[in-house]
């Protein structure tokens, strides 16, 4: 590992993984306790439309994809809030539609399109300084919002109807929560790619769930797990010259199986 750290891109990758881990441990815990991994999958895949749109219109990809994911998040939040019983079908449609839009826009984009596969499978080694600063800013804003609304988010996650009855602005907070999840998804796309987002978001909190009794501790423990999986995955990827995203997910999945087997 230390040998790998002599390369600037490796150092960037490690710093970025730590920053992403903090956010994803927190938001992944919400995904698990709310049982909305399908919603997260929908947002992640629909975000491909954002990748396509960014390249087509020539705007920075992370910015364009982030805004697109936010829009999808708001839409899914409102629809899933209003039509609880139809929600899986609606998300399925948005999931596919976003990807289709992405494919068409990329096809119609002139010139160099970059490494499209890196969006599907991630490439943490392409993280640059600007990305790192953006990740840091996102982490800070998200942590502030979560600490302000921690109890309210817990109430709407646990029992939405009770939250409505006691006068918590449930829909608005639910939209905010899904938006934070959308942003965290865009940051993970950078590391493991669209196709593997849900795994990195949900496996660590699922492991953590067995060891803790409060949501806050679940978040902290999940963040540490993601950090550990990412750094170990990166090391394996460096040593054996394998794709980093896939290595991280394999480390995470094996850890999940081992802890389930032991506990």
């Amino acid at each position, binding site marked *: 590992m230390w040998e790998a750290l002599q390369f600037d891109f490796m150092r960037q990758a490690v710093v970025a993984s730590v920053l992403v881990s903090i956010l994803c441990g927190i938001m992944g815990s919400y995904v698990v306790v709310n049982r909305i991994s399908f919603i997260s999958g929908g947002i992640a895949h629909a975000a491909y439309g954002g990748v396509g749109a960014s390249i087509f219109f020539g705007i920075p990809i992370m910015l364009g994809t982030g805004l697109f994911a936010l829009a999808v998040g708001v839409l899914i939040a409102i629809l899933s809030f209003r039509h609880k019983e139809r929600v899986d079908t609606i998300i399925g449609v948005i999931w596919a539609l976003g990807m289709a839009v992405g494919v068409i826009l990329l096809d119609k984009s002139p010139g160099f399109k970059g490494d499209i596969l890196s969006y599907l499978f991630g490439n943490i080694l392409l993280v640059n300084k600007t990305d790192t600063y953006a990740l840091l800013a996102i982490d800070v804003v998200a942590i502030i919002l979560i600490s302000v609304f921690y109890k309210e988010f817990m109430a709407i996650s*646990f029992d939405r*109807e009770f939250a409505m*009855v*006691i006068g918590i602005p449930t829909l608005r907070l639910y939209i905010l929560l899904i938006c934070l999840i959308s942003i965290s998804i865009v940051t993970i796309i950078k590391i493991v790619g669209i196709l593997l987002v849900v795994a990195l978001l949900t496996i660590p909190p699922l492991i953590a769930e067995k060891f803790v*009794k409060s949501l806050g501790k*679940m978040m902290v423990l999940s963040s540490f797990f993601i950090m550990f999986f990412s750094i170990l995955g990166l090391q394996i990827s460096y040593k054996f010259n394998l794709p980093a995203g896939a290595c991280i997910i394999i480390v995470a999945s094996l850890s999940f199986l081992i802890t389930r087997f032991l506990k």
Partner: protein
Amino acid sequence: MEYAIEMKGVCFSYGDSPVLEDVDLFVKKGEFLAILGPNGGGKTTLLKLILGLLVPQKGEIRLLGKTPISTRHRVGYLPQERDFNLSFPITVEELARMGRLGKVGRDGKSKAKDDEAVQEVLELVGLWDKRDWPISNLSGGQRQRAFIARALATSPEILLLDEPTSNVDPEFQTDLYQILVELNKRITIVVITHDIGVISSHVKSVACVNRHLTFHEEGQITEAMLSKAYPCPVDLVAHGIPHRVFHRHP
């Protein structure tokens, strides 16, 4: 006369299937009303309409004289237990504290008041010593107590309880109705229940709901009422419960 709950000509259906038809219900302040009826008869729907969680297709509902949405934070609500994610990482105290969020006690809300209210309700339901337990470690009955504590933590003017004694040990059933009788001195209580036995010696009035609602001013439950509320004959037999089920005979 100001009513705690008023429903006039309320109709509600999910899609094409009517759940409640032409329901009139007037609950006085200080009332202790039991709602009986078969599963799927519309009892929970009735409660959700009162809370403004569902909107009726026809009719009018007033809660404490105003629209449900504007006054529902003054209600302590106990939902049915089967709707919860019981592996949720939350402790008993965190659950009770949830009752102090939102608009609850908005004037003069303080940390000290919240702490006091949470301790008071947890002691009342006998869970203060288990306040650090995650709810996943509780028995069915203990969990129900924790949810009742949350409803009471809102310092409600009305309590709406949806099957508070399901999954609860018989001992707590007795305790619960003692607590409710005590609370009823200052709070209006509406309770959906299936245990006709324990409750009928405590309530002041009964409503039978099976698509239509029949209100009975008297608290005593009779066979005629039950045959109207339930599609099949129900026997009024006390199962050796150490309670007076029927009023004293002359």
